[in-house]
């Protein structure tokens, strides 16, 4: 069935003529060879065109210089206890907060049932003292407040997103407001006690 449909689309010489144009009899010899040629040429042409599209699409992906900047090393030594800094990584803010004992204890004590996106604090940090988060609200991408001492930190002592009122706790987990998920923890490694590489 499918086969015969396909065959109908093969250009039949002498059949597809317009109004009164020269009609040429179909050559009875080896129509199968023409069919094969038609399919082969179509397949090769379509494949070539499809492959040729890829470089054009891929040119829109991040370029080599952009990719080369996809890791950033941060020196942690100047950050005092309780202080937070913001660094730029892949064009986005990354929050680095050196948490106090109290903040860590509060984050640890939260029951999983109270969380919209349940995750223990221990799963979100490599070393409890250092909380490292992508500073982008998981709702619609604003930067939450809470980095500067005078900023509002929301109802849970972490961050507060002023755009649509999402509250994050001292582990960066969503507690209240429209955001669906916790602040993202980027991939990072401690190169030494005071040096991390993000990305």
């Amino acid at each position, binding site marked *: 069935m499918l086969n015969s449909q396909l065959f109908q689309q093969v*250009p039949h010489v002498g059949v597809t003529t*317009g109004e009164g*144009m020269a009609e040429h009899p179909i050559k009875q010899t080896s129509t199968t060879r023409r069919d094969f*040629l038609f399919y082969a*040429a179509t397949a090769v*042409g379509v494949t070539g065109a499809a492959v040729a599209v890829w470089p054009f699409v891929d040119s829109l992906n991040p370029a*080599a210089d952009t990719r080369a900047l996809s890791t950033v090393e941060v020196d942690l030594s100047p950050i005092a206890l309780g202080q937070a800094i913001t660094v730029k990584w892949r064009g986005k803010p990354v929050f680095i907060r050196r948490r106090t004992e109290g903040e860590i204890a509060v984050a640890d004590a939260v029951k999983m049932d109270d969380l919209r996106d349940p995750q223990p604090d221990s799963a979100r940090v490599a070393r409890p003292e250092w909380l490292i988060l992508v500073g982008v609200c998981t709702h619609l991408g604003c930067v939450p407040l809470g980095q500067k001492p005078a900023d509002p930190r929301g109802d849970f002592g972490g961050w507060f997103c002023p755009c649509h009122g999402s509250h994050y706790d001292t582990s960066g987990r969503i507690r209240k407001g429209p955001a669906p998920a916790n602040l993202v923890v980027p991939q990072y490694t401690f190169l030494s006690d005071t040096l991390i590489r993000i990305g």
Partner: protein
Amino acid sequence: MSAPGKLQKALDWFDSRLPIITLMKHSAVEYPTPKNLNYWWNFGSLAGFMLVVMIATGLLLAMQYTPHVDMAFDSVERIMRDVNYGWLIRYLHMNGASMFFVVVYIHIFRGLYYGSYKPPREVLWWIGLVILLLMMGTAFMGYVLPWGQMSLWGATVITNLFSAIPVVGDSIVTLLWGGFSVDNPTLNRFFVLHFLLPFAILGVVVIHVWALHTVKSNNPLGIDVKGPQDCIPFHPYYTVKDLFGVGVFLIVYCVFVFWYPDALGHPDNYIPANPMVTPPHIVPEWYFLPFYAILRAVPDKLLGVLAMFAAILILFALPWLDSSKVRSGTFRPWFKKAFWLFVVDCFVLGYAGAMPAEGVWITIGRIAAVYYFVHLLIVLPLLSRFEKTLPLPESIGTPVLKQTVMALAFLALFAVSGPAFATGSAPLRHQDWSWQGVFGTYDEAQLRRGYQVYREVCSACHAMKLVSFRNLSRLGYTEDAVKEIAASYQVVDGPDEAGDMFDRKGLPSDRFPSPFANDQAAMASNGGALPPDLSLIVKARMGGPDYVFSLITGYAPQPPEHDLPPGKYYNTVFAGNAISMPPQITDGTVEFTDGSANNAEQVARDVTAFLQWAADPELEERHAMGVKVVLFLFVATALFYALKRRIWAAVH
């Protein structure tokens, strides 16, 4: 009801409300086409194909390009070096401009030979000329965008043409520039216009095709179609023939893109624009050369400009200048000879336009320019009156002309190599380089040695601003080795919290640091001469690697008769023989870490290889992809040809 039946019903429903399917069917499927069109008729569809390629590649380039005098050049180099397949897209676009003109010029000459401008096709001819004018404007403004030396000075020279207009000329030029010289406002508006005009061309092409489908195609016999028996439907006959033509054309196009991407350009355009220095030989792109030759042939500014514009505008009057009732040159023995003489004349004009305006070339250019007008204004009107034409065949059906693939030979004619300008310098010492040839690749060990030479010798004075440490991984260094190399450099970063700049160890993503803080510092330390940035030096010099190698090894004792200014050194290759750079490379200058021979020749060859790589880092990828693409195109084109023969078997 079967599925195709439902689909047909849905299509009919749509078509009865917006008859776009009927329109397509009428103009691209059923369009009755003379059955005797030869391969010269392929160039119309090829031109349409090139327009699509130029718009597609151009859109993607525009997404990466920055139209600002401080950033344009580097943004183009970023496309070449960092954007995924950016080099491919840019080379397709850059060479595409040349290919577009090749195709369109052949299309025009085909029209000239077969009398396609004669009644009833005068308006069709005019619209085609409008497309040509729009193309010329678009191409000119596109060439300005990379903001190299030729961009800036080409823009300066061409816009200054308008200053020839009496009284208001200077005001018009200032208006075009948006300033008192070609500068940022000019670049910005040229970018906007270069983006806009192709869509204007697209619109005019639609009108061109509309006019064509109203008056129907001419044919090699130039006689009117007598009835339906002379015609065949456009599809499948000419669709498959055009497809085959696209295949052949793509092979030629790809050979340029993958192996000779810069052959049709000028090395000077790889030097960033400098409003203080004009390159010694300003030459437009090859497709403007015949008109440029006409401009230069007239020793008066205004008249020269008028002659140049007249050379194109006069073509609008062609239907009346040549009033012979016989269209096709095939039946006009004298016209045929005059036509080919005119073709030769256009090539002579093109060649004269590329030559320096001195000596015999001035005379040759003038004779050719005069003949251009003599042909159109005197020869054609006289021929159409006095020529005895051959008897025309009764109908198209009677003799179907033999088809030839001479089109290809014509294409080859266009491959004019850039003429070298001798400046009293010694000939270059041609070397066998590993990257030459279809499969040419770099020798990693040689590149690493060359990098060592650059670092230990050249980098004391020469910057390489476009190369990053991360690029060194292409020399075979591991990721850790690249980091180590980067960390061995100090780079300036900042400002820090206190607002001060500070030094830090280099990272792989950093560019090579420059030896001097700025150009002024570099000149102050080098006797007033600016050591050029070496990132693109091989591409930016006529002769490429052979030039660089010959220059490094070209120092010689000063001949007694040669007057050398103080602080200069005698070099056999450098223009004027007096160079500010002292000889740097002697036997043993560098102790190679891999223990290779370190005589001066070898060191020069290695550093040249490194500089070639720095200018052309994508070469290996380009060659490898080119081989695959061309092999594929051969297979596809052969299949298209076989299919074409199959489909046409009934007509022949």
